[in-house]
């Protein structure tokens, strides 16, 4: 019974990760850790959870960060990007090369990628853009085209602008103060970029209000959208039940899904954005939920993912061939080992 006996070949690991570098990048920090197993298993959109504060820490909860990049050097490295927003992230920013951290990952459901070479628009807010660059690489392998639309409060908070310019077919920036690109927020430019890039699929990561608006616009343009949500987590592995949000499953039932294992990537239209932070009255197990004829429980339980459609029949959009396939939910990894 040791931490180094994982049950699954693709599941998360818990490792001692050695800090390679911590660098300041504009308003953010990027930390590179040597974590070979995690790097090998990584898929874009997944995250790591770091224990902070060292031995006997008074900070018990892990800090979750989406993985920005993995590289093969030193056997495999993982890079995360973060802003200093409290004691835990300040402690992380003060780490130096050769410090050792307790790292779990890769965690969560990755971005599904399309089967066909389609036009993909990657939308990022603040350092929410961090996971989009590895996704872009994966999409290009599939011969998809990649356009970037990144925004933040100011130019120094648009993470990865240079990389987006260098690697994207196009790169559009918005800043609230106008210090980079167009003055405004990403959703101001979304329609225009969709037209110009002839977008087939949207991927988005950033603050919840942005994801909500991107989803609304994607729906208006009848485009599939995959969002990586940001919810506060305590454990990152699906046991603490703190990071839940209302998500509509393929059966039309709303469940309080865990963003750490049922997400962080969801189809945008599955998330009940208006109800985030609440328990919708009709959610599974909520006061207004009615077990229709004592429906047998679905295997896999909370947060159904696969092939979810809009809740009401009225706006049903047949999934286009370009619609990214939903991989099996990693939360349902039931056939361990073997």
């Amino acid at each position, binding site marked *: 019974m040791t931490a180094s006996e994982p049950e699954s070949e693709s599941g998360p690991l818990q490792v001692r990760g050695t800090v390679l570098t911590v660098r300041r990048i504009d308003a953010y920090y990027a930390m590179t850790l040597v974590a070979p197993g995690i790097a090998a298993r990584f898929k874009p959109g997944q995250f790591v959870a770091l224990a902070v504060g060292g031995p006997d820490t008074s900070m018990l*909860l892990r800090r979750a960060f989406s993985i920005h990049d993995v590289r093969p050097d030193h056997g495999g490295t993982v890079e995360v990007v973060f802003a200093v927003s409290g004691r835990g992230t300040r402690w992380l920013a003060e780490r130096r090369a050769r410090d050792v951290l307790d790292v779990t990952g890769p965690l969560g459901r990755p971005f599904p990628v399309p089967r066909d070479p389609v036009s993909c628009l990657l939308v990022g807010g603040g350092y929410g853009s961090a996971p989009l660059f590895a996704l872009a690489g994966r999409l290009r392998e599939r011969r998809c085209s990649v356009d970037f639309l990144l925004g933040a409060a100011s130019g120094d908070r648009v993470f990865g602008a240079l990389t987006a310019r260098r690697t994207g077919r196009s790169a559009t920036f918005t800043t609230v103060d106008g210090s980079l690109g167009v003055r405004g927020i990403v959703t101001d430019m979304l329609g225009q970029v969709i037209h110009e890039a002839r977008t087939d699929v949207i991927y988005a990561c950033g603050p919840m209000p942005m994801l909500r608006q991107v989803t609304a616009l994607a729906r208006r343009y009848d485009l599939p959208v995959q969002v990586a949500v940001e919810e506060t987590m*305590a454990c990152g592995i699906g046991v603490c039940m703190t990071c839940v949000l209302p998500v509509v499953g393929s059966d039309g039932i709303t469940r309080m899904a865990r963003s750490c294992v049922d997400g962080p990537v969801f189809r945008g239209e599955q998330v009940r954005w208006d109800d985030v932070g609440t328990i919708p009255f009709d959610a599974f197990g909520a006061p207004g939920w009615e077990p229709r004829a004592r429906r047998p429980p679905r295997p896999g339980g909370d947060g159904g993912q696969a092939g979810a459609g809009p809740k009401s029949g009225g706006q049903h959009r047949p999934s286009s061939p370009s619609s990214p396939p939903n991989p099996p939910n990693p939360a349902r990894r039931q056939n361990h080992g073997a």
Partner: protein
Amino acid sequence: MAPDLRTRLGNTELPNPILTASGCASSGRELAQFIDVSKVGAIVTKSVMIAPRAGRPTPRMAETSSGMLNSIGLQGPGIDAFLQRDLPWLLSRGARAVVSIAGSTVDEYAELAARLSDAAGVTAIEVNISCPNVEHRGQVFACDAGDAGAVVAAVRARTRYDIPVFAKLSPDVTDIVAIARACVSAGADGLSMINTLLGMAIDTETMRPVLAGLTGGLSGPAIRPVAVRCIWQVREALPDVPIIGMGGVMTGRDALELILAGASMVSIGTAIFHDPSACARILRELDDELARRGIERLSQVTGVAHEARTASRGRAGVG
């Protein structure tokens, strides 16, 4: 020689006294990615209720110094899904299942006990009585000796004779010994202690409570001294009643502290959020702690802090 850590829980012999704490390990599946669940003494499941439950709104959690507040609201799929999916999975992995149950009426607890007794493979039932009693103006069962005893009596009556029933006590009471006595008189085979303490945090930026549910259960090392005190008091009063101790155990040393106070088993809760392999690590550390002291069997040290000091090295009296 490695110390003998075997522990009895009713008719089951556990390989060791380290358990998960209810609500911190779900039904074991997620932890199996990091540890071998069959090598933990037992998996204590998240509290199961009759019906599916969505829980409370978010934010549900706040980190505090050496602790955390949670206000999950017992989100879970209900007993049907538990029996169909979670319990068979635990058994298929060779794990021992201690099933925590929660209800809002005495009858709900009793029905859960009956359903679990009909299923094969339940090692023990832990009764989470820190729930509001809807038949008693929302008064928490665990805070009233009569209510606590009523739940335990109903559960014991509907539970198969060979499944031990443990009542999980709340420290938020004036006299925990009185509640413990009521539960034991009502038929509890053992006691689990402690549940979380009710706490609250306010965000000084927004100037509003952090948790959507306003108050939450405080757990983590911040509450360990409270756990030690409660276990001590109950062991002192009821020396023959087995105790599952829990409350802020982060290390093998911490587990030993609860054992010395009188626990014969120790549940690991919040530590799992910090370290998903905490149960395996704490078990190793406990083994080392005992070996280092030349202790051969766990039972040699259970409750030993109550014995009169024989060592010449006396403690300095404080207070």
